[in-house]
């Protein structure tokens, strides 16, 4: 009986028919499943969210495994180029000088910090929330025409929550936009949907920094008569109550228009997007 069935299924005409039937069923099946997934975006069921977080984690770590050899090969090329870079001695000397200068600035900053703390104590001003930083590895970065995402190796298991800022050497990179169990997604400041309240302390001006996709970032909602200069520094204002204030973002780059009202300001960000391996997530200390 089973042999008979086998013989029947191996007949070319019948197997082709079986394939056609299965294809006919597969198409509507996948479209229905896709729509179910889409409608689940709007649902708030805990089970669905948990299932999606699991799928996201699975996909993230599989992609990481697939990408590791590719990254190794591309890193190998970079290392080789660095090895054959004969200006490295000069560069080393220059960097040592810079480090000395930075140490001097750090000592000066420490003095101002102490002075600031003393003055706050005298005036009775309470310190704002303390933050702890959690180290995270970037396991994947993705750019398309609308979004710029970093996928991080930590998730709700480490207490990561939506909206927390991610930084690199105290430079603001973006914020957490999605949290899974063992991974999370961060929206970079250049993402089209990114809006960050910022302050330009040298001018006493507040504004909103909008991501412009591949074109960088742009300042919006500036006061009407605000005049900014090239190289004015931008920091997070913390006025949204989520992102820590005083995180460095970048420098102003003004266009050449003379009319102040028509002038547009973009930002030279303080980090290089393609050289990111590790970041820190800032979490409020409880």
């Amino acid at each position: 009986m089973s042999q008979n069935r086998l013989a029947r299924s191996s007949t070319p005409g019948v197997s082709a028919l079986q394939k056609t039937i299965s294809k006919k069923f597969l198409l509507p099946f996948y479209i229905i499943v896709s729509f179910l997934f889409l409608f689940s975006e709007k649902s708030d069921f805990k089970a669905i969210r948990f299932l999606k977080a699991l799928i996201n984690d699975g996909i993230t770590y599989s992609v990481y495994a697939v990408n590791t050899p590719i990254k190794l090969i591309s890193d190998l090329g970079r290392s080789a180029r660095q090895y054959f870079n004969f200006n490295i001695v000069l560069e080393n000397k220059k960097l040592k000088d810079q480090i000395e200068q930075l140490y001097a600035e750090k000592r000066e900053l420490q003095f101002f910090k102490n002075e600031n703390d003393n003055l706050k104590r005298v005036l009775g001003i309470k310190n704002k929330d303390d933050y702890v930083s959690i180290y995270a590895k970037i396991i994947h970065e993705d750019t398309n025409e609308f979004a710029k995402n970093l996928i991080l190796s930590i998730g709700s298991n480490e207490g990561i929550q939506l909206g927390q800022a991610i930084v690199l050497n105290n430079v603001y990179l973006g914020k957490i936009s999605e949290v899974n169990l063992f991974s999370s997604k961060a929206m970079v400041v250049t993402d089209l949907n990114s809006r960050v309240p910022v302050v330009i302390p040298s001018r006493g001006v507040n504004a909103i920094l909008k991501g412009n996709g591949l074109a960088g970032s742009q300042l919006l909602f500036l006061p009407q008569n605000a005049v900014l200069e090239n190289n004015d520094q931008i920091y997070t204002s913390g006025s949204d109550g989520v992102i820590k204030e005083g995180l460095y973002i970048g420098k102003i780059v003004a266009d050449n228009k003379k009319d102040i009202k028509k002038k547009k300001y973009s930002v030279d960000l303080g980090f290089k997007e393609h050289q990111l391996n590790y970041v820190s997530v800032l979490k409020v200390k409880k």
Partner: protein
Amino acid sequence: MSSTLEKIKFYSAHIIFVLICINDSIFINTWIAPGPIINIKYILVFYFSFFDKGRFSITFLFLIGLIFDSLQGMPFGMTSICFILLSILAAYLKQRRTQINFQNEFIAFAISLFVTQIVSIIILNYFLPIPFEYLLLAINIIVSLVFYPVIRTLLKVFYHY
């Protein structure tokens, strides 16, 4: 031996497609065009559906779509629908043409891409409560159309359709 080579050649398209989908930024943004991104994924789906209908199965397109959505933070299932729709449109438009030349192929690509992008806009507008940059999408479509002949020629050299 030759069958192994044929198998490698057959699955090479799948491997290229998967790598491009999961490494959108590395392959496209920095290597080819620093400005608006060319939609190589859609070009590949169209090309292989137009010339070799059975190469990318619906299951494969569905799964890769899900992976892409998960990585890009798009609504889950959107890219799967777009890939499947593009594949069906390409196969259908080829069936309708009696004569296959570059002009017909290009028009079919333009129609398929346009319809797919409209569907993606509808889905994004309904499921993602964030503003949408139509100008970038228009640039993306135009750049994809401009680069289609180049990428198609490169693919033709290797796959001989």
